[in-house]
């Protein structure tokens, strides 16, 4: 009984979500192997070998350079026969890849697993997190994506597992990578940050988001946004927190000028401490906030920044 975890990486380093998926895999009580698909990514495999896995499988191929689903799914499907579970993070990478893998293998799939009750029984949120389903998989091989924040990350050890180089499998032609536009950020990654400050439509403009960013820098926080703020062009798409954006569960979540729609709450209501700053005392966000401050955010933000200044 062996579980295969599919690594997410950028050909240079592993994405943190992979460490959490390995944490989930340890709950299954099986041996774990890790598949690294990419191009020029030997260093990723070497780092991954120290994560308590039995073996790292390395598949290098031009088609894997940009993690395209067509090549990736073909590679995973060709390997899958020997495993009881196939796991990947429920990030855009894993969500793109794993259903394709499952269908190639004629298997169902369980998305966004937040707890493992038994090797065939998994817990996952449905209806934007307003209900929790416990699902038993009836397939011989369980294909899962795992919500990273729900599981502890594994820590690298001293011992390095062997790296086995696989013959690359090319997927069907038809998909070509043209380019990408990544949002540069000096701040911690949203999904793994200890503190997240999110802004909504109440910020009023893109320039006002700078107020949040200054406060975020003071707290070492990541900056998130509601869908309304993204749609209004105040913040980039990849900052969206919610059912259709990123799911976060930081120690501290500060919601500024956002009402707290169901879809937004789905992305942050597992945060340990929630603070809401909103001038509308009836905003739904106050129903989940541990600390609520009914006030104008344009008064509150500079004041918070001042009070959090070093030495104050």
């Amino acid at each position, binding site marked *: 009984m062996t579980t295969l975890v599919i690594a997410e990486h950028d050909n240079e380093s592993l994405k943190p979500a992979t460490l959490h998926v390995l944490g989930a895999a340890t709950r299954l009580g099986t041996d774990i192997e890790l598949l690294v698909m990419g191009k020029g990514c030997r260093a990723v495999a070497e780092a991954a070998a120290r994560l308590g896995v039995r073996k790292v499988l390395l598949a290098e191929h031009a088609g894997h350079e*940009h993690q*395209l*689903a067509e090549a990736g799914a073909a590679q995973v499907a060709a390997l899958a026969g020997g495993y009881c579970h196939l796991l990947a993070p429920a*990030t*855009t*990478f894993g*969500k*793109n890849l794993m*259903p*394709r*893998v*499952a*269908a190639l293998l004629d*298997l*169902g*799939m369980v*998305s*966004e697993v937040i707890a493992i009750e038994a090797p065939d029984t998994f817990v*996952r949120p*449905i*209806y934007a997190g*307003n*209900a*929790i*389903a*416990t*699902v*038993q*998989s*009836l397939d011989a091989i369980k294909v899962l994506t795992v919500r990273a924040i729900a599981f502890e990350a594994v820590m690298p050890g001293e011992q390095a597992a062997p790296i086995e180089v696989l013959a690359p499998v090319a997927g069907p032609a*038809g*998909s*070509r990578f*043209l*380019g*990408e536009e990544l949002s540069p950020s000096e701040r911690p990654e949203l999904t793994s940050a200890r*503190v997240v400050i999110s802004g909504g439509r109440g910020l009023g403009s893109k320039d006002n988001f700078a107020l949040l960013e200054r406060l975020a820098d003071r707290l070492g926080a990541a900056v998130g946004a509601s*869908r309304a703020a*993204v749609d209004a062009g105040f913040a*980039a*798409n*990849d900052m969206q927190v919610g059912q259709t954006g*990123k799911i976060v569960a930081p120690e*501290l979540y500060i919601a500024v000028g956002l009402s707290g729609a*169901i*879809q937004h709450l789905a992305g942050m*209501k597992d945060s340990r*401490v929630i*603070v809401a700053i909103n001038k509308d*005392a009836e905003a739904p966000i*106050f129903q*989940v*906030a*541990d*600390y*609520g*401050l*009914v006030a104008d955010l344009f008064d509150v933000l500079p*004041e918070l920044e001042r009070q*959090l200044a070093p030495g104050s």
Partner: protein
Amino acid sequence: MKVLVTIKRVIDYHVKVRVKADQSEVDLANVKMAANPFCDIAVEEAVRMKEKGWVSEIVAVSVGPAAAQEQLRAALALGADRAVLVQSAEVAEPLTVARLLAALCEREQPGLVLLGKQSIDTDNNQVGQMLAALKGWPQGTFASRIELEGDELLVTREVDGGLQTLALALPAVVTTDLRLNEPRYASLPNIMKAKQKPLETLTPDDLGITPRAHSRVLRVTPPPVRKAGIKVADVAELVDKLKHEAKVI
């Protein structure tokens, strides 16, 4: 090129769902239903492609109960040319839906299948990718921009960390993200005209597909409830609470 666009009938996204007392499922009795918002975006995109002259025919497809005809009629009112309902009383699992759609693709031979990236009830985010796998077609998931250039579809995808652009050979499968477009509303004359448009009803049997169970829902429970918090009077009190009570800063 013919486009197949898929529509799922789901609980309206404004509705606060309730879990049944016997923990069997979410209570859908007397609850407002609507087209899945991501499917609305797929329909809108198909209509825009037709308006640009890229698309000759739009076929709206739903796998669901007889009542899903309502959502198909809405798609016809927005500009779909005809509709197909694959009627299934039970909520089909994603792989079954994908197999049904693959069989329909055999019959219809579309150049493109447009789907929502996920339905807001089951939140699976699986069907489009599964369909692409079954057909051996390229996939452009989480699309926020679609352009036709020569015989390729350029799809800009929303990925963690930013945007990525792929060129897909046709036929292909594309799933829509929220920012792809802003769906329009149907006009009353178009709603009336939609009543005359063809709507065909099929069964999984007609398509030669036997649904299989890949999973079983053991129970559905409400999520843990957060304890009600307190309101603080000012910033000083907030900072004090965060430092000394919650100990998070």
